């Protein structure tokens, strides 16, 4: 794996000393991939993103984003962000929103103008670019939100519930945009509840529960263990075959044989045995666990393992070179947000 764009550890966040949003969280996000962060409500997904973007302050964070400590202000210029329920002033037009964000991100106005046109075209908002936001639908505002997140040509883009309020056609376009971003070499970090959406685009995922990462890795690898072949047949399965298949660890349910294996070669003897008994094979397919199944399984496993241990309030001292993103540190370093 090339250098990760985000590599953090010891991320703790306790709101007003009561709600423990994140507990000693560690996370690595590979470069140039679409990374999905999943978790139930209140798992700490948005808090984690906000800590990475210095919107929320956390003590004792170790690690880097784009090679700089978390909270490094100049690094934020290379990052794009679409918050959940993004709100833009209704007196601005779509183009104005892009100019506003470009200004804050210190993009020269000449580049900002050119880039605005490109992005408005990309998100399909060129025709309505000069209309006030108050006349926009939720989906249109979300498109403008995506465009503003890209105005500074970021290396990493954080999208918090990007398809929220977007119609099915719009969602497909959003997915295409995300894939385009990845193809351009950007890292896309998505927070979403829509697992089906994520499954279609994500290369890597991390599942967050009660402030801790309970599973993470490449989506294909995570679901590989559950890969199986399924045979649908017609007719009655003889008793000796039932015994044999059960002994081999296959699941037999309602004219369906489910075989946990990664290679189709292993399914051939089963097919031969069924054909030998004159059974009709109506379907043979390869299946794997869906992201939703993986998510539910991870959350259930975490629940069975009990609540995570309490992290002491005082975090360990930071590693050399990785300064914590807390306020006291901010005061010491002039270039930190």
């Amino acid at each position, binding site marked *: 794996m090339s250098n990760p764009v985000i590599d953090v550890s010891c991320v703790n966040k306790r709101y007003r000393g009561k709600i423990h949003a994140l507990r000693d969280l560690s996370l690595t996000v590979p470069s140039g991939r679409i990374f999905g962060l999943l978790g139930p409500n209140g798992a700490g997904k948005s808090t984690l993103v906000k800590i990475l973007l210095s*919107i929320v302050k956390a003590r004792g964070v170790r690690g880097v984003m784009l090679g700089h400590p978390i909270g490094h202000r100049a690094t934020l210029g290379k990052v794009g962000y679409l918050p959940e329920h993004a*709100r833009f002033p209704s007196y601005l037009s779509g183009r104005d929103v892009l100019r506003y964000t470009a200004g804050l991100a210190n993009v020269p106005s000449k580049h900002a103008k050119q880039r605005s046109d490109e992005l408005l075209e990309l998100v399909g908002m060129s025709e309505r670019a000069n209309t006030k936001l108050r006349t926009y639908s939720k989906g249109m505002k979300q498109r403008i939100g995506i465009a503003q997140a890209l105005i500074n040509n970021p290396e990493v883009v954080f999208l918090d519930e990007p398809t929220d309020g977007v119609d099915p056609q719009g969602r497909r376009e959003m997915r295409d945009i995300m894939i385009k971003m990845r193809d351009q070499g950007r890292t896309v970090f998505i927070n979403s509840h829509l697992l089906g959406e994520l499954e279609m685009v994500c290369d890597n995922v991390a599942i967050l529960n009660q402030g801790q990462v309970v599973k993470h890795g490449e989506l294909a690898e995570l679901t590989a263990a559950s890969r199986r072949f399924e045979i649908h047949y017609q007719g009655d399965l003889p008793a000796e075959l039932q015994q044999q298949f059960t002994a081999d660890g296959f699941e037999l349910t309602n004219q369906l044989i489910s075989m946990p294996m990664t290679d189709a070669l292993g399914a051939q003897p089963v097919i031969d045995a069924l054909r030998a008994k004159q059974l009709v094979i109506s379907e043979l397919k390869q299946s794997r666990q869906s992201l939703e199944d993986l998510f539910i399984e991870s959350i259930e496993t975490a629940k069975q393992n009990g609540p995570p241990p309490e992290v002491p309030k005082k975090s360990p001292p930071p590693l050399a070179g990785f300064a914590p993103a807390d306020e006291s540190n901010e005061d010491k370093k002039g270039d930190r947000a």
Partner: protein
Amino acid sequence: MRAICTLIWDSFRMLSARKLFWFAMAITLLISVGFASVGFNDSGYSLGFGLYQVDDQLINSGSPLAEVMLLKLLTDVVVPWWFGLAALVLALISTCSIFPEFMTSGSIDIALSKPVRRTTIFFTKYLCGLLFVAVQVACFCLVIFLALGLRLENWNYTIFWAVPLIVFVYSLIYSVAVLVGVWSRSTIFALLMAIGFWGFSWLIQVSEGMSYKFAYTMPEQGISINYQSGETVINEGATEPNKTAVNIHSAIEKIALPLPKTRDATYLIRRKITVDSNNLTSAAILGQLANTAEDDKMFKSEEKYQNRHSERYIILSSLAFEALVLLLASWLFCRRDY
């Protein structure tokens, strides 16, 4: 710098999108046109661009009091009642929501995720909130300056002192609204608290002014009051100040010290606008209206009353208050999680 320009540009867009701004601007322009409609001729003065003629022996084109009268109308009526009260209330209503709205989730996140310091965002937003008043007073002063210059051929640049003074007064009240807005994130609460605090400090200042008059101005004019019987006696010469009245004034003065001097700062305009090198509190100017020695004595004690607080005291004590409030608000704004 680009980020600051962006925030200022956004503030102008916000201002121009608010109907209240244009409403207040329309009234301001109406007042300035009304002001500009006053003309002078040999027999007196006219109103409504010559529609209504008033014959006056004291105030006419040949009298130095013509300009004084117009400027007194400005400093004693328009500035304290429109710019010092009504326009400020409209400005507060219009700008109180700037911070609470900006700090809502989904709005502030975008600004904070950019490479801009939180303190820069806070202070730029605060200063931009003052634009509401600054633009209006500046337009008003320009019209008055041109009207006086064209009618009396006297280009009085000191009129423009109204701009920084009124903006300063507004900044004192607005700082309270910002502090409460940042703390509570509620526009209504911020507005009520700002107006409430403004009213409280105004009451203290009025009390201080009245107690000063009882303690010092009236004895100086030879007026003595028997506080038990309520009897008032006018003496030939100055009398000794009443000890109780002096103590009361001293106590109120101490209460007023840490408070913003909104009223005093508004009336500083009388000291900053000058006519023939004399400011509008000067007995030398008002003495032109004096007929008797008593009148002259009254104008002198009035001058002393209006200048009882130094400009430095008014500005610095108010600035100290504003700095404290803004530091607290910026600290809250910068350390908060959004």
